[in-house]
C-alpha cells in the first residue's frame, strides 16, 4: 500500500478546464509545462481528459453557461481526485464576481481542495499549489479506504 501512495504522489495527472478565465491564468498554467518550469519532472502530465486525470485544475470564474460543464468534468473523474482553483477568479470570482453572468468561485459548483491566489497566479505559485494538491490526493485516498471499510 505504501508503494501505491508513493506512486500516487509521483504520478499526478491533471486536466485543465478553462472555466471562463481571462487566459491570464491559463497561459501561466501552460507555461508550467514548458521547459522553464517543466512540471513533467514531477511526473505531472496534462492529460486533458477527465477520465484519466487525478487533479482538476480550474481557471476562471463559473458562469451560467459553463457550470454544468465543470460539474460533468468533475463527475467523470475517477476517485481519488482533487480540485485546484487557480487565480482569484476561480477562488472567488475575483474582479468579475459582480458581473451578472458570473456565479463566483468554482466552489459554488464543485468542492475545491486547493486555492491559489494571484491574478494571474505565477507558475511558481501554481507549482506550489499542485504540490499541495498532491498531498491532498494521498489524504483523500486514505479517506476512501476508510469509507470502503465502513461499507464492508
Amino acid at each position, binding site marked *: 500500500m505504501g508503494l501505491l501512495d508513493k506512486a500516487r504522489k509521483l504520478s499526478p495527472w491533471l486536466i485543465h478546464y478553462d472555466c471562463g478565465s481571462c487566459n491570464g491564468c491559463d497561459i501561466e498554467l501552460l507555461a508550467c509545462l514548458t521547459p522553464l518550469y517543466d512540471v513533467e519532472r514531477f511526473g505531472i502530465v496534462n492529460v486533458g481528459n477527465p*477520465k484519466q486525470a487525478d487533479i482538476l485544475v480550474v481557471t476562471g470564474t463559473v458562469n451560467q453557461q*459553463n457550470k*454544468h*460543464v465543470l460539474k*460533468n*468534468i468533475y*463527475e*467523470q473523474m475517477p476517485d481519488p481526485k482533487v480540485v485546484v482553483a487557480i487565480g482569484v477568479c476561480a477562488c472567488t470570482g475575483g474582479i468579475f464576481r459582480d458581473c451578472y453572468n458570473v456565479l463566483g468561485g468554482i466552489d459554488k459548483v464543485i468542492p475545491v481542495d486547493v486555492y491559489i491566489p494571484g491574478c494571474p497566479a505565477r507558475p511558481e505559485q501554481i507549482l506550489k499549489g499542485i504540490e499541495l494538491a498532491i498531498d491532498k490526493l494521498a489524504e483523500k485516498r486514505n479517506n476512501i479506504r476508510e469509507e470502503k471499510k465502513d461499507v464492508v
Partner: protein
Amino acid sequence: MQAGLFINILLPFAIASIIYFVKNVKVRNILIIVTAGLVIMSSVYIWFEKPGRIPAGSIIGVPLDKIIEVMDFLLGLYILYISISLKKWYLVMLSLAQVIPMLIFEVIIGPNLEVKDALYIDNLSMVLNLIVSIIGTLIWVFSIRYMAEDEEHKKIYPSRQNRFFFVLILFIGAMNGLVLSNSLTWVYFFWEITTLSSFLLIGHDKTKDAINSAIRALLLNSFGGVAFVAAIIIAYYEYGTLDIQKIVALRPSGLLLEPIVLLCLAAFTKSAQIPFQSWLLGAMVAPTPVSALLHSSTMVKAGVYLILRLAPAFRDTWVSDMVAIFGAFTFVVASLFAIGQSNAKRILAYSTISNLGLIIAAAGINTPASIAAGILLIIFHAISKALLFLCVGTIEHHIGSRDIENMRGLFTKMPYTTVLTVIGLVTMLLPPFGVLLSKWLVIETASSNPLLVLLIAIGSALTVMYYTRWIGILLTGTASQDKVEKETEPPSISVPLTLLAIGSVLISLFVTNVFNVMVAPEVISYYKRIGIKASEGMLSMSIGAFNLFPVFLAMGVAMVLGLIFFRKSNVSATPYMCGETIKDYKYAKINNELQTVEEIVVRNYYFEDLVSERKLVKWVNAIAIILILMIFGVMIL
C-alpha cells in the same frame, strides 16, 4: 450403403415434391424436421462407411446414367423455357448454347458417355456433403419460423412458402449429388439444378429487384454452364473419359489442360469470383436463409470444390500459379469493396467472395499444405458464414434493417443474437479460430510467391477493418444509460443459431482432429504427402507451426478476468464528450430546429470517395478478365 445414398440424395427430391403439395403447415414442418434428421443421419452414415467408388446403378432397369442424361436435357429445356418467357435474348442464346451442344453430343456419343464409377466418395466430397447436410438442414429448420415472419413483414399473400421449401429442400439433394458425383455429366446435371434453384430462390419475393437479380444470377451461371458444356465435350475428345478421378490421374499438361481451365472458369462463375461477383451481390435480395444456404455455405462452394478436386490435375503448372493469383486478386478486391459497404448482407457477400478467392488461391498454390488449408477454410467458413447470415436475418426481422449502422448498440436490444453474431464475426476474423488458422496456413504456404503474399497480406488487413468495426458497434452502449433488454427467440430460430455458434467454436478447438480425420487423408491420397503434423492443438509444418491451445487458454483467461473485473467496476461512467453530457447534448443553441436534443451519432468510415464500388468496379473487372485470359494464355507455355 445404397440406402444411405438414396436418403442423402434422392429423399430430398422426393420430400420436396411432397411438400410442394402439403397445405397443412404443421404437417409440413414435421416433415421438414424429420427429413432434416434423416439427411443428417444418412450423411454421417456415409461418412463412416466411406465406400470410395460406387458404380452407377439403375432404377427399374433403366440405367441411372441414361436417366440423368434425359433429365439433363429436360432441365436444359426448362431453363430455355424460362429464358424465353423472360424475353431476354441473351439468356436464350446462352441456354441454347448449352442445350444444343449437349444434345448433339449426347446423341452422337451416346452410350460411350457412361462413366463406370458414377459416384466417388472420399474425404473432400464428404466434407462438402457433411456441410451441406448438417448446415443445410439446420437452415431448413431456421427457415420454418423465419419465412413465416418474413411473409408477415412483407405482406405476401397467398403464402409462397410451399414453393420456397420445395426448392430449398430439393437443392440439398442436388448439392449432395453434386459433391458425390464422379462423372462430369452428373456433376453438370446437379450443377444446373443448383443454378436453377438459385434463380428460383433469388426471385422468390417477386419484386422487381428480386427478379432482376435472379435474371442476373441465371445469366452469369449460364455462362458458367456453357463453359462447363464446352469442358465436357472437349474433355471427352481429349481424354476419352468423363471420369473426374481418371482425368485428375492423367495430369494433362499444356493445351490439354483446356477442359480443366474451362471447368475452372465455370467454377469461377459459380463461386462468384470477380468479374462474376455481381450475381452474388444481387442474390442478397433473397430471404436470408437462401443467402446463408446457397450463397455462402454450400452452392458457391461447389465452384471451389470443383477447383480443389481438379487441383492435383494441374499442379506445378503455370496455370496453377495464375489461378492462385486470380484467387488472391479476388480476395483483395472483394475485401476492399466490403470496406465500402454498410449493408450487412453485402458485407457478408463480399466477405464470402473474398474467402472463396482465398480458397481458390490455396488451390492454385497447389501444395499439399495449401490444399489442406483450402479444405479447412471451406469447413470453417461454411459454419461461421451460415451463422452470420442467419443472425443478420434474425436481426433484420427485429430492427427492420440490415444496415450495420442501424445495429449500433444492438447488444442492448437483442443481447443473445448479438453475442452469437459476435461469435460468428470473431470466428471469421481472429485466431485461434479456424478461418484465421487456414489463412495462416495459406500465407505460409504462399510465401514462396511474394506477389501472392503481398496480395493476401493486404487482403487480410482489409478484412480486419470491416469485421472489427462491425463487432465494435454491435456492442456499443453506455451501461448507465442503456438498459439491456431481455430477448426471447422461438426455438426454431435459437436452436440452429446456437448449434452453429457452438459448432463454430468447437470445431476450431478440435481443429487438429478435424484435420487428421477429414483433411489429411484426402490430401495424402493425391499428393502422397502432406507436410503438416497436427496433434496436441498444434499444426506444424517444416517452415512453421501454429500453437492453438495456448491461444485458447489465454483467451479464456482473459474473458474470465474481464468478467471478474467488470463485476468489480463502477459501470456508471459516462463517455467523454468534452464536458457536455451525452444525454442532453444540445450543441449550438441555435433557434431553428436546434433546441432539439439530438443524439450524437458517429458513423464508420466507408471511404465512399476512395473505395467507391461504382467507380472501381469497371477497372477491377477488366483486370480480372485479363487475369482469366492469362490463365488461358499461360496454358500454352
